[in-house]
């Protein structure tokens, strides 16, 4: 999987939790929760969706450090490897 493909699948997971997101306007390097209204339940449901789709299980302590979409993509890329 390329990084772009990985990013697209993670965005799809996020889009199912928060369908109102305009990904064209979303800044991948800025804090996600400053741009999207995500509460702790949404965030956990997002992590569960990533786990179900990509098989990447992000530990609690790591998840707390992931603030931007890029950081989530980078973390998953490091775990599963990208082409």
């Amino acid at each position, binding site marked *: 999987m390329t990084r772009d493909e990985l990013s697209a699948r993670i965005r799809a997971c996020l889009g199912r939790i928060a369908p109102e997101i305009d990904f064209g306007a979303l800044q991948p390097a800025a804090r996600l929760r400053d741009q999207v209204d995500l509460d*702790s*339940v949404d965030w956990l449901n997002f992590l*569960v969706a990533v*786990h179900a789709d990509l098989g990447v299980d992000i*530990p*609690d302590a790591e998840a707390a450090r992931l603030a931007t979409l890029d950081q989530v993509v980078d973390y998953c890329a490091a775990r599963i490897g990208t082409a």
Partner: protein
Amino acid sequence: MIAFGLPSLGADMDKGTLLEWRVRPGDAVKKGDVIAIVDTTKAAIDVECWHDGTVEELLVEPGAEIPVGTVMAVLREPGETSEQVRAQIDALRAAPARVAAPSAIPPERPAAPAAVAAGRVPVSPAARKRAAELGLAVDSIAATGPGGAVTLADVEAAAARAAPVSRGEAMRQTIAAAMARSKREIPHYYLAEDIPLALATAYLAERNAGRSVTERLLLAPLLVQAVARAVQRYPEFNGFFRDGAFVPGPGVHCGVAIALRGGGLVAPALHNVPSRDIATLNRALLDLVQRARAGSLKASEVADPTITVTSLGEQGVRSVFPIIYPPQVAIVGFGRVIERPWIVDGAIRPAPVVTASLGADHRVSDGHRGALLLAAVRDLLQRPDELAKATP
């Protein structure tokens, strides 16, 4: 024979629109099966059946708007034959007040209002009162009553036509009606308490370390459980105020206020909270929030919360002054968990602290008991291990 009526959809909903049947005549249904989907201003609601039986006849067509209580379908009980229930169905049909006429087509807009003498429009007192409540001018309402009088039905019809079509606006009106009733009828009093959460957050961190995201616990179910077990000790906060008297809840069913994307909120119930273990409650809460935001709740969830918990989460502010959802008699709110200076053993230390607040009904309880309730919530949250366990 089982006459299946549209169940209550919560105190602020008195009607719904049948979207679709999930069963057909001849289908066997079991208790808990979803048999229809009914639309309300807040969400599409899955209506469950509470009996085992066989569908004999569906009495309402999709598209029909029906009041709560309307008989929607007739089921045969186990052992009954079609012949035995046919006569009763005919009797039901003969009583039109209880069975909605299937009207999939919205009524035509009436033509010009009936001519009336200039100056004064004849209006029944009930219609005048209702029009005033709705903010409608009586001379703008199409009259169908004797002598060109505006009747109560005319006012309701005019209000229905004037009603906005978007769900967002409809939901805002529903929330406004429930909250206006609350502020009009319920003499609220408010109490608040700062609760240290060092033990609770340490419990969660330890419990979640090394576990899969699919088993991860949030703080919210601990907060909900603390409220549920506290109201077991102080039952006058769990139940309803109906017909001038307090009616205790049949169990502790915690409504959870859930903000919806695009505005509005719902507060569906987590059932029988005190007996559940924390992992079960956590799963139920995640599922409930996701379904609420997708607009897919069950009738039993929207109908029967006995107390509501509202939590602002980490994006919120320090405290909330919550408004009771009638006919309930109390609501507990939690603000954002904030690191604050906290004195432990004579030294100032940083600690995660949440402000819990109670809005309660003075017709049922007093501040002294309310204070004991909040103190119980505080103390329960200092023993997260016990809170997490199921109780018999």
